[in-house]
């Protein structure tokens, strides 16, 4: 155990975490030259494309130094605020953290909140300045930022480059000498913490854990304390480039377990694994049942694909336990599901995976948060869908969730960022200059506003320089109204949204305008209206199309014309009939695209 080091990586997207991790894997001989492809750790297509880690990954390396062999367990953490609970569990499994900061970009909000989490867990922080090979690298200033934040000496900061391999030896040296060996009693009762689980279509659920105390042997009867479920340890082992089976693992180590479980819901991240016949007395602290933050309807474009959608969602849920869904029906869209997500990115990922992995064409409705509606008789109704809002006359008041948002921006954009946050009903709570030109702003604001087009707007007003992180605070009373959208006089429930009263007029107008752009002209006129209750607050008209045989078949170029019309038909297949009107998929998310 004294030669084991468990560490994670804290980094902002694009700061080069995966490339640097690959360097470590290569240097320690964990992967060969041949296998060295970019971003070994991210194995989902979406992860590679977006450069974001969605699932935690773990990998074990062996490294010899000073005549001794060390076991290094790297636990890669998800890089997005939607997955902050998983991040906290990964951090709890480690004794140290590599803080990777892009030498040209500086520290970002997401990094800071994860860093604070790591410091809270007493992790040894090894600061690394990455991308030193870039001309735009600004090591002095970024080093100052790091020193200010963690109170280390400037000499502790390791200059590195995932691209050239610079600093890799120093990093390995620091991991071995600066990070403490794990403590724990191998002879005690088994106490291991699950920090992630992945789904494998052949093996079922594979859970990753860190053993705090005791030993786990292949074939043991084991038990999860929070779910109270018991299984046999069919296979245990450590994680190299693949699964490496072992017969026994003991305190301080990181490993995997296969129990034949097929459903991700049965194994919860943060749960404590122990032995059935000699269970540990206490569960490891910090377990939470993660609750979805954002809700949206998912409907098949083709109503006949409802059952297929259900089975696809069930399969998705097998490997993503944080996805929740229940059937719902919409007057406009027919049968579908109301789904709960950890956040906006999670929602996008689910939609993308449905389309890619299951070839489903789906409509996602405008996302909303969970509201609490208090009815005059004193009862509270939790709303996951604006259409469920009780009749205003019977309602006392409504509450919505608030968050504490941290935004780090270059000082020149602070004015614009503040204006945006105030527009989004935010209240400035704190403003700190991290360096002379980087400012950290703390706001309290409604989560519902973040769910709309906050990220994109923040990027725009800060030219991409602001970073954002949040945690949820409490529920507060708000003056919300239900904004309905009508197509030719019929309200489309899937387009309804709960909006602050002061924004309703402006938003209603902009949604109508956006829909006018998104809905193609049809053979009849379409009236678009926004209303609050019976009051129409905005109106637009889409005129009828009468004619579209314009293009000539030049000199027998029939292929070109056919392909044009084939493309048109493909577009139509992605449209949904609402009444007589063909509405394209993206129109249901019009509210999110008001600035495009």
């Amino acid at each position, binding site marked *: 155990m004294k030669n084991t080091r468990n560490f994670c990586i804290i980094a902002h997207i694009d700061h080069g975490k995966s490339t640097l991790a690959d360097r470590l894997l290569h240097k320690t001989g964990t992967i060969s030259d041949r296998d060295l492809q970019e971003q070994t750790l991210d194995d989902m297509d979406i992860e590679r494309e977006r450069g974001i880690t969605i699932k935690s990954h773990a990998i074990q390396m062996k490294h010899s130094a000073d005549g001794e062999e060390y076991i290094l367990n790297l636990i890669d953490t998800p890089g997005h605020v939607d997955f902050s609970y998983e991040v906290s569990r990964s951090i709890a499994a480690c004794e140290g953290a590599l803080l990777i900061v892009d030498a040209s970009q500086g520290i970002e909000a997401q990094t800071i909140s994860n860093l604070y989490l790591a410091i809270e867990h007493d992790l040894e922080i090894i600061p690394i300045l990455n991308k030193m090979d870039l001309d735009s690298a600004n090591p002095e200033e970024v080093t100052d930022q790091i020193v200010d934040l963690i109170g280390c000496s400037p000499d502790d900061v390791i200059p590195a480059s995932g691209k050239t391999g610079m600093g890799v030896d120093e990093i390995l040296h620091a991991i071995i000498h600066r990070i403490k060996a794990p403590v724990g009693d191998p002879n005690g009762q088994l106490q291991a913490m699950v920090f992630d689980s992945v789904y494998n279509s052949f093996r079922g659920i594979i859970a990753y854990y860190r053993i705090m105390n005791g030993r786990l042997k292949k074939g043991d009867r084991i038990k999860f304390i929070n779910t109270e479920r018991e299984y046999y340890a069919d296979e245990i082992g450590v994680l190299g480039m693949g699964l490496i089976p072992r017969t026994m693992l003991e305190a301080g180590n990181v490993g995997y377990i296969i129990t034949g479980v097929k459903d991700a819901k049965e194994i919860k991240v943060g749960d404590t694994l122990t032995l059935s016949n000699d269970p540990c007395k206490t569960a490891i602290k910090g377990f939470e049942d993660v609750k979805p933050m954002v809700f949206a309807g998912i409907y098949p474009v083709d109503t006949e694909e409802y059952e297929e959608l259900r089975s696809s969602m069930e399969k998705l849920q097998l490997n993503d336990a944080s996805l929740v869904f229940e059937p719902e029906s919409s007057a406009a869209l027919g049968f579908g599901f109301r789904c709960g997500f950890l956040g906006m990115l999670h929602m996008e990922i689910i939609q993308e995976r449905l389309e890619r992995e299951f070839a489903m064409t789906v409509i996602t409705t405008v996302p909303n948060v969970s509201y609490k509606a208090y009815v005059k008789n004193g009862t509270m109704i939790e709303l996951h869908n604006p259409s469920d809002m009780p009749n205003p006359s019977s309602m006392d008041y409504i509450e919505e969730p608030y968050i504490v948002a941290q935004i780090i921006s270059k000082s020149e954009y602070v004015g614009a960022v503040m204006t945006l946050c105030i527009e989004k009903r935010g209240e400035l709570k704190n403003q700190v200059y991290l360096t002379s030109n980087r400012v950290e702003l703390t706001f309290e604001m409604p989560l519902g506003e973040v769910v709309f087009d906050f990220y994109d707007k923040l990027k725009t007003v800060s030219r991409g320089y602001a970073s954002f992180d949040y945690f949820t605070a409490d529920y507060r009373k708000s003056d919300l109204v239900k904004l309905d959208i009508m197509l030719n006089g019929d309200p489309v429930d899937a387009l309804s949204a709960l909006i602050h009263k002061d924004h309703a007029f402006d938003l209603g107008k902009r949604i109508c305008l956006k829909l006018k752009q998104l809905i193609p002209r049809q053979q009849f006129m379409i009236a678009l209206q926004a209303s609050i209750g019976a009051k129409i607050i905005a109106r637009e008209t889409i005129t*009828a199309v009468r004619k579209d*045989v314009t293009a000539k*078949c030049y000199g027998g*170029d029939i*292929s070109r014309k056919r392909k044009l019309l*084939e493309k048109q038909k*493909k577009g139509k297949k992605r449209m949904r009939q609402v009444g007589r009107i063909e509405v394209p998929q993206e129109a249901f998310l019009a509210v999110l695209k008001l600035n495009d």
Partner: protein
Amino acid sequence: MKTKDPVLKAMVLEFQKQRDYLNKERIETIYFGGGTPSLLEEHEIQLLLDAARENFEVSPTAEVTMECNPDDLNPTKLEELKRLGINRLSIGIQSFRDEDLKLMNRAHKANEATRCVREAQSAGFDNITIDLIYAIPNLSQEAWIKNVDQAIALGVQHVSSYCLTFEDGTAFGKWVNAGSMHQVEDDEASEQFLTLVERLHDAGIEQYEVSNFARKGYESKHNSAYWNNTTYLGIGPSAHSFNGNSRQWNVAHNVRYSKAFAEGLNWYEKEILTPAAQFNEYIMTGLRTVKGIDLGRIRDDFNIDLASANVELIQGMHDRKEVIFAGDQMSLTKKGLLRADAIASDFFIIES
């Protein structure tokens, strides 16, 4: 070889290389088109006609059309064309109004348009088609009616008419995007089109395809080939060919085209048509004709029962009075023809 022009030289070679493309079928139509073939000199036209006759059996009654710009035509040129055996002229008149011609960047003036048609008639051409463009910005309904009436008064046998389109990348597209020009609204464009159909009909010139109108017996044999699934061979840069189950198109660039022949390289791209593509093309071209599509043929050739596969779609078209059935023949009404492309696309089969 009687010419120095490398493009013509290559075209003669292409005739030789493609002599089996049409399966030794007799040639019923020859069409000189695309760009300004009327700029060719007499011996150059002769060279191409000879090459066609040397490599193919050309029917003595074949329709031989030459596309001409009004400003290239004069009595001498017309006599020359007549001598060469050209028996049909397609004259790019586009409008009888100088302001429209200027806007569309045409070289000729309105009075030249009238003059050259009359001269062609005097030279003995009795099969003349002209084209008219509608939905031109600032072309009022009255001015359009005058344009149509002038075409009728000239006594031409055939009219093609197209809507002015604004495509990205063209000067028009740029003007529209910059807001300095406004595209004519659909309602106005279809009004002009319907006026055209009606006035030509009253004059005995009947619509037989969306954009084509003719006196009885003067329907273009050549254009009809495109719509009737007849095979054809295109010779020259950017020409398209079709042999029943594949389409191919020559390189569009003059120099690259002739170079390909000089160096013995491939000069075309080819697409094998899947059954779905063949079906889609049949629907697309068929629905543009007044005759329509033959549901029996679709059953036989593609094993598809079109009507029962598209019950709702056809019901909707029926309710909108866009479609008529006569036995197995399904065709679009005047109203339906306005949307022929969109309707065709609704029937398409999309392969994933």
